[in-house]
């Protein structure tokens, strides 16, 4: 019988080993993703005990989220609650922080910094972390330009349907300058209104900029045009439109049944002629190059390094004649289309999009600053410039003449047909066209033609940017100057001396004196 007993013991031991393996899976491998799960409220509970870091807009002044101390009623330790001074304006970016419903947005993505649980970077932090005392969090500064954010928010909010999204970015650096999803919600009282929000048919909790997928319609033609240029099609190549494009298996007609006759390729983009794009795609580009080019622009990518979750755009399987002008199973998000406009504006080089400008410790020492990074070389510079010129033509001679300004604008409208009511109204643009500093994508759900709703919304942001352009740049320079803390005499200190030379408040006087002596000697030497 002992043989059987021994065997069953091995069986039990195996069971215990399996338990340890599963534990290790949760506690080591899956730990981070579970900590950041929106259903997980443990991080938010922990934050009640120590102040979380503040979140700033790019100017370093506008506070987007801060912690407010609330003295305990029973005389114990104080707790901290989260306050969002800008309310719904930044909800799509900053997210919310709730002990009941977990957290979203920057609040959860940058939790390690905000909660001060990241690896310690100063001696104070190290001591605090080892001693287990409440650890104040680091401050996070975003790349969002507050004025642009306001302009974008108001533009979507005042649109006819009041549902949509705008993303603006700096094509040269990849900095996100504005990111708006509307309708939004007030993160200040998320606990009370959460159930209401989750049942709201307007879906205020959905981040339309990064997670809403929509047919892009004709704005996608710039991607198709990029593929065509790569394939050797020139803007001057002539095509003939008879109002209908027919091949075995394919039939395409123009929006509003337009018939345009003989036009060149640049003109086809200006007038947004579906049949010619279908023809170019089926006859010249082919499915493979179209998928490849869309992939280079960012289709199918979830942008893992970006702090907000991005639902990948998809070309899907389907009729490539339809996919070529943004219909059929072609779905995209506004973030992706801003990336397309920025890539073309930046000479075909896609920059890694980012929202975090820098992270500082509570006493102002820079812990991390995001450097611009190249994401993908999508197009040769020459082809990109050609495409940019074609998009200038769209504004100057074509469908988007409402976007004409004193400086040249490159743009493309999109009227994305959808089974649910009026088409979605799209516009992507960059300005100034010859040396672009801003790229914008705007989408108004069921807003109608591209120039009806999407265009004015995007241009509201560009106009705001161009107006403040003159003083915005020097302001940024100032910002950089301020990065190094200065001593009272105004002499910038070296990095080694950035270390806070501040003494703990409650030291006995004799120790304090000897510390001061030490520092004076150190200073003299």
């Amino acid at each position, binding site marked *: 019988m002992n043989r059987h007993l021994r065997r069953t013991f091995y069986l039990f031991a195996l069971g215990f080993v399996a338990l340890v393996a599963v*534990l290790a899976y*949760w506690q080591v491998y899956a730990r981070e993703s579970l900590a950041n799960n929106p259903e997980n409220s443990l991080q938010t509970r922990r934050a009640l005990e120590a102040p979380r870091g503040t979140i700033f807009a790019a100017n370093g002044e506008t506070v987007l989220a801060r912690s407010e101390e609330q003295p305990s009623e029973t005389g114990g330790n104080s707790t901290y609650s989260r306050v969002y001074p800008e309310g719904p304006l930044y909800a799509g970016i900053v997210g919310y922080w709730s002990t009941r419903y977990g957290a979203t947005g920057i609040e959860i993505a940058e939790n390690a910094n905000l909660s001060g649980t990241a690896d310690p970077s100063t001696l104070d932090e190290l001591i605090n972390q080892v001693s287990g005392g409440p650890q104040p969090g680091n401050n996070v500064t975003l790349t969002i330009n507050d004025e642009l954010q306001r302009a974008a928010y108001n533009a979507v909010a005042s649109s006819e349907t009041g549902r949509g999204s705008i993303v603006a970015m700096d094509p040269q650096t990849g900095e996100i300058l504005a990111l708006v999803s509307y309708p939004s919600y007030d993160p200040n009282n998320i606990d009370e209104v959460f159930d209401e929000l989750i049942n709201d048919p307007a879906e205020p909790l959905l981040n339309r900029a990064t997670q809403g997928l929509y047919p892009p319609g004709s704005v996608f033609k710039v991607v198709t045009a990029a593929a065509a240029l790569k394939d050797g099609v020139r803007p001057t190549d002539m095509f003939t439109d008879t109002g209908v494009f027919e091949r075995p298996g394919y039939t395409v007609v123009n929006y509003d049944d337009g018939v345009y006759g003989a036009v060149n390729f640049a003109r086809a983009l200006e007038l947004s002629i579906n049949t010619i794009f279908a023809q170019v795609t089926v006859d010249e580009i082919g499915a493979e190059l179209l998928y490849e080019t869309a992939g280079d622009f960012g289709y199918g990518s979830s942008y893992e390094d970006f702090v907000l979750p991005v639902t990948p755009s998809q070309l899907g399987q389907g009729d490539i004649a339809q996919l070529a002008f943004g219909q059929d199973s072609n779905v995209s998000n506004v973030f992706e289309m801003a990336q397309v406009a920025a890539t073309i504006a930046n000479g075909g080089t896609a920059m890694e999009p980012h929202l975090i400008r820098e992270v500082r410790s509570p006493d102002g020492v820079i812990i991390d600053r995001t450097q611009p990074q190249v994401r993908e070389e999508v197009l040769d510079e020459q082809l990109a410039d050609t495409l940019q010129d074609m998009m200038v033509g769209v504004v100057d001679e074509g469908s988007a003449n409402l976007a004409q300004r004193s400086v040249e604008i490159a743009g493309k409208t999109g009227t994305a047909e959808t089974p649910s009511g009026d088409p979605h109204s799209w516009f992507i643009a960059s300005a100034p066209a010859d040396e672009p500093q801003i790229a914008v994508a705007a989408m108004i759900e069921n807003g109608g033609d591209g120039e009806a709703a999407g265009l004015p919304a995007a241009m509201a942001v560009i106009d705001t940017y161009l107006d403040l352009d003159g003083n915005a740049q020097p302001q940024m320079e100032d910002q950089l100057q301020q990065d190094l803390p200065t001593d009272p005499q105004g002499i910038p200190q070296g990095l080694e001396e950035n270390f806070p030379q501040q003494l703990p408040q409650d030291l006995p006087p004799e120790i304090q004196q000897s510390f001061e002596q030490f520092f004076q000697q150190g200073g003299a030497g």
Partner: protein
Amino acid sequence: MTQRATLPMLLAISICLVGFSTLIFVQEATSPPLIYGAYYAGTLFGLYLAVRVLLPNSDVLILPIVTMLTGVGLVMIFRLTYDVEGVEGLAITQAVWILVGSAALFLTVLFFRDYERLFGYKYLFAFLAMVLICLTFTPLGYEVNGARLWVALGPVSFQPSEFARIALIIFFAGYLAEVRDLLAATSRTFMGIQFPNLKYFGPVALVWAASLALLVFEKDLGSSLLFFVVPLLMLYAATGRVAYVLAGFLMFAVGSTIAYFVFGHVRVRVVAWLDPWRDPDGMGFQILQSIFNVADGGLTGTGLGAGFAQTIPEVQTDFIFSAIASELGLLGASALLLTFLVFVYRGIKIAMVARDAASKLLAFGLTAMFAIQTITIVGGVIRAIPLTGVTLPFVSYGGSSVVGNFIIAGLLLVISEKSGQNERRVGSEEGNS
């Protein structure tokens, strides 16, 4: 030779006292933890000394393990319920139950040193097990959280199934020791499949039927599982026939599938296990909170008192392991699991050196139940398997469970005492010659 385990005993007590002392700092509870600690250390060390005197040849390593597990449980229950509205008194109750359990162990080793006598009354134990289970269907029984597991006798309420299990294992040990040869031999073959003699197999089938009844009427998935699997393993140990195990698991699979489709509460457990995200605020809530807390612990844990395991409903009973994993981390939780495994190892060892088949089967049955119960509940709270509501032996809050497990430890001690005496006698005879 007298076996000594004083050092492991002191080690276990010290570890738990460190735990109690830590709570003074993290929970700002000034004196209660030390009072609990002193009380716990006194009770279990006294118990250890008593067993040393009463059963000098027993496997006394059992007691340091029990001490360790009980202590960790009491620290955790105190930590989870101190100053928490509605459950403030649970640690005191648990402390009392540990005292009662210690007394039960003491009485077991005092009166059942000749535990072989119990096998003479094996049918009485089978009857007792059935009566205990049926007690929950009488007006004395009542439901908690949808499962009818409780019986109130005057001011005392208890879970009869905790004790029915022990009675049943005593019965099986006695019965299988008698008929094992008859069961091991094949009586007839039908369509190429060998069948055991139904006459001897009858009682086994009866118990399996009873386990199904438990499942259906009491909605007690945990007991039902134990009542099914433990006799199965004992059957294997007694006969060495893998066919029994295979047939049993086949029946188990069929039964589980039927139960899944017929009973809502089974389906709820399975669905909550497979996809807790589907209903994170409802069915999946408890298991998700458990996983979040386990993951929060990481490698080294948040530290005693610094976790948030109170977010798990009923954490002090079924889910106490999640709280331990959260605050003591992978290292602490693995150490605890290792402690359980050492108990299982000692139990199997006691079975292997026991003199006769009945003693072997008794020690094995008790150990197997302990092992499966531990694997089932730990596996359940870490989402390795569907959750079944059984307690973590010695650690979870619960009077019936604590007392029942102390009795199991007592029985293992008396069994080891017998074989220890045996060895001693053989040893001294050899020495004399």
